[in-house]
C-alpha cells in the first residue's frame, strides 16, 4: 500500500529546450511544468499541435532528458529500467517493425518483459482478440492500414499489464468504431485502477474518458483541474423524457412557473449522433457477416490485464469479470430492448409528485449513478482553471464539432 502514496508522475519545474546544430537554444518545448498524477487517475494532457504534449511524455519515459527541473516516475528517475516494467506506452505514431507480423510483434515486446513462453502466447492471443486482429495476425505490419497498426500499437502497450499507461494521440488514424473501442478500453482500464496519461488534441476523446486534465499551450501549462467541474453548467437543468404532447409541455411550463418561478429555455426533440448511427450500421453489417479485409469485431478486455495491480485485488477482479461478461469492448452495444411506454399524463404525475416532494429543497440535478460513472468515486483536485480560458479552448471548438 505504501507505494500508492507516491505519485505515479511528479514533475517540478520541468523544462526542455531544443537546440540547433551549434547547441544554441532555439525552442522551449516545455517550460516550467509542474505536474502530478496520482495512482488510479485518468489524466488528460490537452493542447494544440506543438504545445509540448509529446515532449512531456518523452521526458517522462526518459527518451529525452530535461534541460531543467525534475521528473519522478513511481518515485524513481525515468531512466530507471525497472520502472519501465510498470509502464505501457503507445507513441503518437505506431512505430513498429514493418517486417514482423502482428503476432511476432507482440511476442517480441513480450520477450522484453521476460515473460514465459506460455504466458506470452496466451497474452498475445487475448490482445489480438481484444483489438480485433486475430484473423490478421499473420500479416506483416507493413501491410496494415494506419488504424490496424494503431490497434497493434495499443496491444503492445498492454502486453505487460502495466500499472501506468501512456497513450499519445491514441485515436489518431482510427475510424469511429476504432475510436470508440479505444475509448471504451481506456474507460475499462481506468475502472480497473490503472493510471492513464492520455495526450490528445481531440477534445472529445479527452472529455469522454479523463478525470483530470492539464491544458498546455506553447510548452506552458495554462490550466489544470477536474474535467467535470471545468465543463459543468451549474445554472442549467436538463430533463430527458420520451416524447411529450404540447399540452403536457404547457402544463410543465406552468408548473415550473408556479413552483420555481422559472421558464423553460428550450424544448426540442433529441437527435441521434452521427457516431451512433454509423456504429449501428457497422454493427448490423458485422452481425450479417459481410466480408471485409479490415479488423474483425473486437473482443473483451483480456483477463490478464489488472493482475499486476497490487491494491484492491478483489475489486479489480470483480470489475474484470464484469467487463469480460457484460460489456465486451468493441462496437458499442445498441440498446434495442424497449421499456413499456408511459403516457404523458403518467410522466406529468410523476414530475408533479417529485416537485411536491422536493419542494423547499435545493433544485440540484441528482448525482449520476455510481455504476454508470465509476470515475466519480475518485478524489478530485481543486479546480484551478480560468473559466474563460476553458471556454475559449474547449467550448468554442466543441460547438464547431457539434
Amino acid at each position, binding site marked *: 500500500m505504501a507505494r500508492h502514496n507516491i505519485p505515479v508522475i511528479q514533475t517540478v519545474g520541468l523544462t526542455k529546450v531544443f537546440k540547433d546544430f551549434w547547441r544554441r537554444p532555439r525552442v522551449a518545448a516545455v517550460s516550467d511544468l509542474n505536474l502530478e498524477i496520482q495512482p488510479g487517475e485518468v489524466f488528460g494532457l490537452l493542447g494544440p499541435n506543438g504545445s509540448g504534449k509529446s515532449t512531456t511524455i*518523452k521526458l517522462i519515459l526518459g*527518451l*529525452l532528458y530535461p534541460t531543467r527541473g525534475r521528473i519522478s516516475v513511481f518515485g524513481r528517475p525515468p531512466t530507471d529500467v*525497472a520502472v519501465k516494467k510498470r509502464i*505501457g506506452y503507445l507513441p503518437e505514431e505506431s*512505430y513498429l517493425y514493418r517486417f514482423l507480423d502482428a503476432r511476432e510483434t507482440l511476442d517480441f515486446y513480450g520477450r522484453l518483459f521476460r515473460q514465459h513462453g506460455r504466458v506470452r502466447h496466451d497474452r498475445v492471443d487475448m490482445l489480438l482478440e481484444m483489438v480485433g486482429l486475430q484473423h490478421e495476425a499473420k500479416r506483416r505490419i507493413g501491410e496494415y492500414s494506419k488504424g490496424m497498426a494503431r490497434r497493434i500499437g495499443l496491444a503492445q502497450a498492454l502486453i505487460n499489464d502495466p500499472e501506468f499507461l*501512456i497513450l499519445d494521440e491514441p485515436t489518431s488514424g482510427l475510424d469511429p468504431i476504432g475510436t470508440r473501442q479505444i475509448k471504451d478500453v481506456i474507460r475499462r482500464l481506468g475502472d480497473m485502477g490503472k493510471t492513464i496519461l492520455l495526450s490528445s488534441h481531440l477534445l472529445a476523446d479527452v472529455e469522454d474518458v479523463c478525470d483530470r486534465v492539464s491544458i498546455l499551450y506553447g510548452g506552458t501549462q495554462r490550466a489544470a483541474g477536474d474535467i467535470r467541474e471545468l465543463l459543468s453548467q451549474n445554472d442549467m437543468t436538463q430533463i430527458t423524457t420520451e416524447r411529450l404532447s404540447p399540452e403536457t409541455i404547457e402544463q410543465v411550463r406552468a408548473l415550473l412557473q408556479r413552483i420555481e418561478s422559472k421558464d423553460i429555455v428550450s424544448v426540442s426533440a433529441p437527435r441521434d449522433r452521427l457516431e451512433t448511427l454509423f456504429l449501428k450500421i457497422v454493427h448490423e453489417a458485422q452481425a450479417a457477416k459481410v466480408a471485409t479485409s479490415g479488423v474483425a469485431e473486437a473482443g473483451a478486455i483480456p483477463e490478464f490485464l489488472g493482475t499486476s495491480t497490487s491494491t484492491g485485488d478483489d475489486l479489480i477482479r470483480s470489475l474484470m469479470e464484469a467487463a469480460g461478461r457484460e460489456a465486451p469492448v468493441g462496437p458499442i452495444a445498441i440498446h434495442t430492448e424497449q421499456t413499456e411506454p408511459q403516457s404523458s399524463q403518467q410522466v406529468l404525475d410523476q414530475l408533479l409528485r417529485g416537485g411536491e416532494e422536493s419542494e423547499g429543497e435545493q433544485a440540484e440535478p441528482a448525482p449520476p449513478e455510481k455504476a454508470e460513472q465509476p470515475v466519480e468515486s475518485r478524489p478530485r483536485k481543486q479546480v484551478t482553471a480560468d473559466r474563460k480560458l476553458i471556454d475559449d479552448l474547449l467550448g468554442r471548438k466543441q460547438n464547431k464539432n457539434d
Partner: protein
Amino acid sequence: MGNVWAIARQTIAESVRMRIAIFFVIVIAVLVLGLPFAARGDSSTSGAVQSFLAYSIAATTFLLSCLTIFLVKSLSSDLADRQILTLMSKPLARWQYVLGKWIGIVALNMVILVVSGGVIYGMTRLLATRPPRDEWDAERLKNQILTARHASKFKVPDFTGEANTVYERQLEQGVYAGIDNLNPDKEKARIRAEIEKRWRSVFPGESREFEFSDVLCRRSRDNMVHLQYEHRVYNYPPDEIIRYQWFFGDPAKDTEQYQVPRRDMRERKHTVPVPADAVASDATFRAVFVNVNPYMSMGEPQYLNTVMFEGDDAVELLFSVGSFGANLVRELALVGCRLLFLAAVAVLAATMFSFPVACLATFTIYALAALRGFLGEALQFMPDEGAVGFLTRSFQYFLHAVYFVIPNFGKVNGLPLLVDGRNVTLKWVLMGVGNLVLIKTTIVLLVACLIFQRREVSEVSV
C-alpha cells in the same frame, strides 16, 4: 541476457526479411561456386587450387565486411524510423540494446562465414580431384598446398668472437689511429654485421651449410620436407639461370643423403622437395649449398655468379604439422576476429551518426586497418625534408595517433600462409582473439554503450 538475445533475434530477422543478408549470401554463393570453373592459375591443378583459395576467401571476407557495415542499418533505422521510442519504453537497458544489435550482426555473419567456409572446403577438395598436370603438380598439391606446414629457420653462426678478434687486431695495427670518438661496441657490431654479410654470400666455388633444428616430422622416405629459398645473385649469366647444387643429410648423424643439382631463375622463390629420412633422429636437418655448376660435365662453364641469402627467411625448411581442413578453420577464425571488431565499429558509428555517415566512417576505418602496412611503407619513401617533409612528418604523427586505436588487419590475416600450405598457428589465432576481440572490440563496444546511454533517442534538432 534474455533481452540481449531478443534484440539479436530481431536484428537477424530484420536482416533476412529486408533481404540485405540474402543479397550478400547470393553474391558469395555465386562467387564461391563459380570460381572453381574460372580459376586456372598457372594451368596446373595446384595453381588452380591456390587461386581458388586466395580469391574465394578474400572475396568472402570482403563481402562479409560489407555486409557487417550494411547490417548496422538495423540500428540506424530504429533511430531514424523511431522504433526506438517503443523499444526504450520497455525494461530494456541501453547497453542491452547495443550489445543485442552487435550480437545479431555478428551471429548472422558467423553463420554465413561457417557455411561459406564449408562450401570453400568442399569446392577445394572437388577442385583437387582434377587430374594433375604432372608429378610435380601432384606433389605440390598434396605436400605444399593441401597441408599445414611449419617453417623452420636456419641458425646463423655467432660471429661475436670473430668480430672481437678482428677489432683487437685492427686496433693493434693502428687502423683506428686518429679517430677520437671511436665507440668500440658500435665498431664491433659493424664488424660482426660485415662478417655475417660475407657469410651469407656464397662466391663461385664456395659452399655454405645451413642447419635447422626442431624438425619434428615423420622421418620416412615417403614423407617429404621442403626447402624453400630465395636469393640475390651478382654477376649472373646471360640467360639469367643460375646453376648450383644442394646436398641434404648429415653423414655424422647417419641420415640418408641426397644431392640435388639445380637450374633456377635468379631472384625468385624456389622449393626443393626432400625425403624426410634426411632428417636426423635429433630433429636436426643439414642442407649444404654448393656454388658449383653441376652441369660442367655436359660442357657448361662455371659462371662467376655470387649468390646471397639475405634475411632470416631466405632459406626455410617446411614440414607438415597438420591438415588443410584445420588450417582453413583457423584462418576463418582470424577472419571472424576481424568481423567482430568491424561490427563493433559499425555499431559505434551508428550510435553517433545517421546510416550513410556511419557507413562511410566504418568503411574508412576498415580501409585504414586493411591498408596499414601499405601506408606505413609508402610513407618511408616520402621525402622528410623541406615543406613536403613537414607534411610527411605531420601525416606520420597523425597515422601514429590513428593506429594507436585502429588495428593492423594484416597481422591477423593468415590467408597468404593458408594458400602457401603453411600453418596458421593456434597461438596466432588466440592472439587475434585476445588483442582484437577481447581488448579492442570490447573497448569499442564500451564506448558505443556509453555514447548511446547519454544520447537522447528522441532528439530533435531545430
